[in-house]
């Protein structure tokens, strides 16, 4: 069931990525990866089909290696909860070019819609702020999404953390590549790095 007045995830992600330019985008395991694929395949997309809890850390590794490029992690509340300690690690490193976006529908949508902690007791924005990510906010409207998207290009003002409350509708899957070697080699190629 969808709660009233929640945003629709595909519209949110396509709006965030419309002006992505050279940004590298990491999608967490589950529907976030489908959302990023639905917004358009891209040689700088890092799709995850496993490694639950690792999306933010993959984003951090890229962000530290490429400090002049915007790096955007888009994941879900369940995936973020599993890697919650990585917010502490990001808060310590403070990469200016990293943006973390959680699409929060308060359920584990891939596995039958079981409730996650964010619907009852966990405030992810509060956690991020307490971990030292001072630019941590909640976004509730498409106008705010549109206003926020360009700020992801500023590689000196991060890290940023955004929780966007979305509805819990299960949308048709848009399948990205699930070949890890291909995904990583393609990103490296886009950055000018060849194979070993």
């Amino acid at each position: 069931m969808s709660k009233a007045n929640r945003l629709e995830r595909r519209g949110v992600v396509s709006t965030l990525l419309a002006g992505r330019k050279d940004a590298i985008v990491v999608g967490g395991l589950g529907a976030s990866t489908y959302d990023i694929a639905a917004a358009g395949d891209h040689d700088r997309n890092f799709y995850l089909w496993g490694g639950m809890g690792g999306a933010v850390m993959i984003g951090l590794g890229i962000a530290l290696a490429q400090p002049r490029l915007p790096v955007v992690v888009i994941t879900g509340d369940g995936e973020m909860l599993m890697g919650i300690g990585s917010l502490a690690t990001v808060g310590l490193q403070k990469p200016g070019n990293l943006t973390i976006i959680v699409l929060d529908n308060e359920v584990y949508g891939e596995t039958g819609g079981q409730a996650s902690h964010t619907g009852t007791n966990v405030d992810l924005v509060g956690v991020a702020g307490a971990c030292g990510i001072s630019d941590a906010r909640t976004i509730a409207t498409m106008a705010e999404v549109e206003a926020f998207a360009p700020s992801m290009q500023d590689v000196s003002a991060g890290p940023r953390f955004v929780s966007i409350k979305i509805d819990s509708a299960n949308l048709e899957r848009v399948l990205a590549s699930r070949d890890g070697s291909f995904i990583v080699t393609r990103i490296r190629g886009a950055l000018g790095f060849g194979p070993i």
Partner: protein
Amino acid sequence: MHLRHAHEKPVEAAPSWPDEIFSILQRFEVRQVAYVPDAGHSQLIERVLEAPLMRAVPLTTEEEGIALLAGAWAGGQRGVLLMQSSGVGNCINMLSLTQIFRFPFLTLVTMRGEWGEFNPWQVPMGSSTPGVLELSGIRVLRASDPGEVADVMEAAASQAYNACTPTALLLSQRLIGTKVFVK
């Protein structure tokens, strides 16, 4: 001979093998050094923190380091993960990334639970550490004598970074020294 106060610890010369590991990491242009601290890694961590070209990344749990290094590789950098044997158990699912992305993964694991261990809680994970790593597709090398660390580390770094072969170098508890709880 000079007199020591009773509360002072005996002065021991720092071992040279951590510095040898550090030199090899520098020569292989390792840029991101992720770790959950362990006493056996303390000297190496100090070197990393002083190195201008290396980024030290303390973790809250070891599995974060696998994902970090996958991202580092996508972004064009090499990394290494420093942990204790108990941390290997925290990594199991995330070790999948080493096979999925086929990236140059190297971890240096200080061993507990094997050589004169005092703490029984270290024994189960220490005993299963080599098996867990091998079952996860990681090649396991081991150094037990101070004189062999540089050679084994050179081999480990070479196969990890040149051959993209995920590798763990186990640093034996005998090498590091048994942790003393009661003097």
